[in-house]
């Protein structure tokens, strides 16, 4: 097959096992090598940001569930943090701890999904994915106990959280946190020193620290390239400044590094949850706020560290109950922008693995 005079066009997606949603790659290939690539997004566009301008701040929280549907808690948290900054609503201490616990549980679940699908992209016949789903399932069970939903949680509120977790939540959470380190060791036996997996991921899709910063990458994609940047440390929100944890930083910036950073973050999240369980005080779980919250006219940018990176909400208020402008800085979208640079010149399997390691959620990209 020669591409010397006719580039071999391959349409990967919008329905394809490894595009992680309805995302489309239009790839020009020379044999197995990729010579050019277009990324086509927008298949999941629901006009979220425009719709949000017609709803109150609290009514907008369900949208954040559906933006990054694999990390709904983080989306909730991001909007609440931004809205609280805009309105100046105080959050009770217990609510702040609850938020940290749920955000970290969500991080574990999301990273489990990301790493599992990455290994599936590398060709393992779903075994690691299903192993990781075991823990994710338990976390989603915890969510279901607390707020009745597994995926679209709609749990956080401006000024706190919606519900106090039920009594059986705490023993189940402790059990989960106790067994998680063992489970993580199990995965490491299966994957971390697996020679085939290393051969497929080491030295593939390398992003240098400079490129990562220039591409405004955030999250594990940035930390995998060796830049120690994490909003939970750099700009602590809620009670992260009272909790003791470390941020893992990769060395080479390749697919394996991003995988390992996620892996290590799972361990650190377990650590955070353990401390939060110890420290959590009694008290109210939310501040009462008026139904139609009317912030002063002004604008605010609130950001948190979601599992995929810096999740920012830019809100402009004109004094009415609905935001005048509602913009989401979606980490997946910005992280994805580097894919073309990484994929062109590599082979198709490498591009698939690289895409998997960037860990996109199309709901968040298209919004």
């Amino acid at each position: 097959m020669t591409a010397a005079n006719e580039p071999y066009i391959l349409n990967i997606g919008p329905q394809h096992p490894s595009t992680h949603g309805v995302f489309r790659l239009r790839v020009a290939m020379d044999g197995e090598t990729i010579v050019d690539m277009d990324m086509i997004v927008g298949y999941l566009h629901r006009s979220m940001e425009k719709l949000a301008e017609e709803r109150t701040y609290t009514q907008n929280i369900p949208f954040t569930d559906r933006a990054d549907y694999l990390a709904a808690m983080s989306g909730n948290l991001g909007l609440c943090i931004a809205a609280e900054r805009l309105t100046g609503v105080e959050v009770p201490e217990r609510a702040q701890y609850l938020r940290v616990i749920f955000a970290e549980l969500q991080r574990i679940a999301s990273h489990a999904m990301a790493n599992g699908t990455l290994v599936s992209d590398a060709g393992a016949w779903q075994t690691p994915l299903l192993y990781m789903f075991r823990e994710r399932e338990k976390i989603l069970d915890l969510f279901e106990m607390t707020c009745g939903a597994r995926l679209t949680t709609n749990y956080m509120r401006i000024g706190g959280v919606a519900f106090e977790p039920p009594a059986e939540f705490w023993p189940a959470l402790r059990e989960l946190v106790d067994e998680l380190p063992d489970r993580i060791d199990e995965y490491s036996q299966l994957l971390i020193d697996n020679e085939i997996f290393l051969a497929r991921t080491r030295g593939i899709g390398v992003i240098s620290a400079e490129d990562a910063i220039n591409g405004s990458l955030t999250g594990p994609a940035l930390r995998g390239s060796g830049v120690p940047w994490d909003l939970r440390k750099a700009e602590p929100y809620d009670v992260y400044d009272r909790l003791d944890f470390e941020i893992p930083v990769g060395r080479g910036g390749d697919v394996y590094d991003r995988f390992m950073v996620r892996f290590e973050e799972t361990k650190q999240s377990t650590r955070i949850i353990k401390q939060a369980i110890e420290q959590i005080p009694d008290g109210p779980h939310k501040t009462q706020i008026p139904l139609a919250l009317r912030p002063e006219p002004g604008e605010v940018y609130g950001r948190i560290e979601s599992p995929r990176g810096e999740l920012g909400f830019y809100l402009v208020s004109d004094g009415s109950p609905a935001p005048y402008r509602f913009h989401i800085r979606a980490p997946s979208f910005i992280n994805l922008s580097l894919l073309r640079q990484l994929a062109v010149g590599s082979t198709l399997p490498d591009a698939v693995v690289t895409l998997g390691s960037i860990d996109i959620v199309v709901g968040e990209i298209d919004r």
Partner: protein
Amino acid sequence: MSSDVKSRPATPMLREILEQPTLLGGIRSTPLPVRLGLAVFALGFLVVNVAIGVLVVSGRLDGHWYDFRDLGNATAALRSWLDDRDLGPWLSYWVTALIGGVGILSFVGGVLLIGTWVERRLLAKFQIRRGPNRVGPFGLLQPLADALKLIQKEVLIPIGADRKLFFLPPILIFIPAMLGWGPVPWAPNMAYLDVNVGLLYVVAISSLAVLAIFIAGWSSNNHYALLGAMRTVAMMVSYEIPVSLSLLSVVLFTGSLQLSEIVAWQSTHNTWLAMILPFSLFTFFFSSTAEINRTPNDIAEAESEIVAGFHTEYSGMKAGLFLAVELGNALLVGALVSTFFLGGYSLFGLEEWIPPYLILFAKISAVYFLFVWLRGTLPRFRLDQLMGYAWKFLIPLSIAFVGISAVEASIFARVDAPGLIVLGAIGIVNVVLTFVLVRAWARVVGYEVPRGEDTRPTLTTAVGGLRAAQRLRVTP
């Protein structure tokens, strides 16, 4: 309260899964009369088996048509009976040919049906799932239900496909998968096509599958299919060489291309060629996984890259045929690995007691289990890695081992010592040589075992930008 929480499954779905019937639970819940009936049946089964054992020991079975240990005796008796009737040689020829052919086809067909269920159940066990358990007892009828579903589906032919050629591959690919079973000996007199070039025949037949795959990929008019076909063709061309070279060592030792002779050699020397030729076994097994698209070498239908590879455009039972052939090929490779390297139907004299075809079937199942295990565990290689592995690693080392086994085989033929001792010595030498040569050659090629430790993430509490990154890079 906490203990109550622990014992209660958290969600209705989980509860439903846990309430599925299990084997032990099924036995416990069976009513007593049924259990008694089963016990009587088991006892009867035992008695019959002991009786058969006595019959075997007494030697009254040997060579008669009712000697069930070798179904070949029955057909031979039938043949001589027909010859005695003087109806012409063609009748006995056709009758025995039909019996053998139907026997092989029905065996393979039956195993294919059970095999899909076995594979899915095993994979489910590896993946902490339960697998198909709804249709029939333990989900055993699931393959039938799947086949029915596939047959009912609409047959789609893509626009721009080469219609005539598009029709052929599902049929063509079945032919080598079935013909390959011909020379496999199931018992001393139980080989359908025991030609004296059996080994070459197997290699030749297996090389034909590539054409069907290529036609499938080409005629679909689909870029994924064509990529998959090109990958398959490239792999098959590369991996046929190590397969042939590894089998050459087998031929050097056994001195025959006839499969029944190869098994007989292993049986008379009370050894498995796997012990004498470990590298050949590995080469054959690994290359076979590449040729039949099993993990870790299933790049021709890597679903995360090229969807389903060469059979992307096939729907309904045509796709079902491709999947069935994939499974059938795994079983065929199991049969060949058993025959060439694991002693075939023989098991150190035990074949006098247990019907040899059951021994062979057990060995096939073991190899097949290994395939499923690999599929449930390993990620996939990349095309260039696989090709490099074949050309830079397997082929040079295979050539070296052909030379080594030629020397050893000639030593074995000349030395006047008990065969087992010589073969044992050769086996030990070969195991050592395999380790030494593989490591040495890996060093020559410049391959290093990748180690994950070098890129384990650094843990830090200080945040920063590029400068912090550079500092981090210097300190560890």
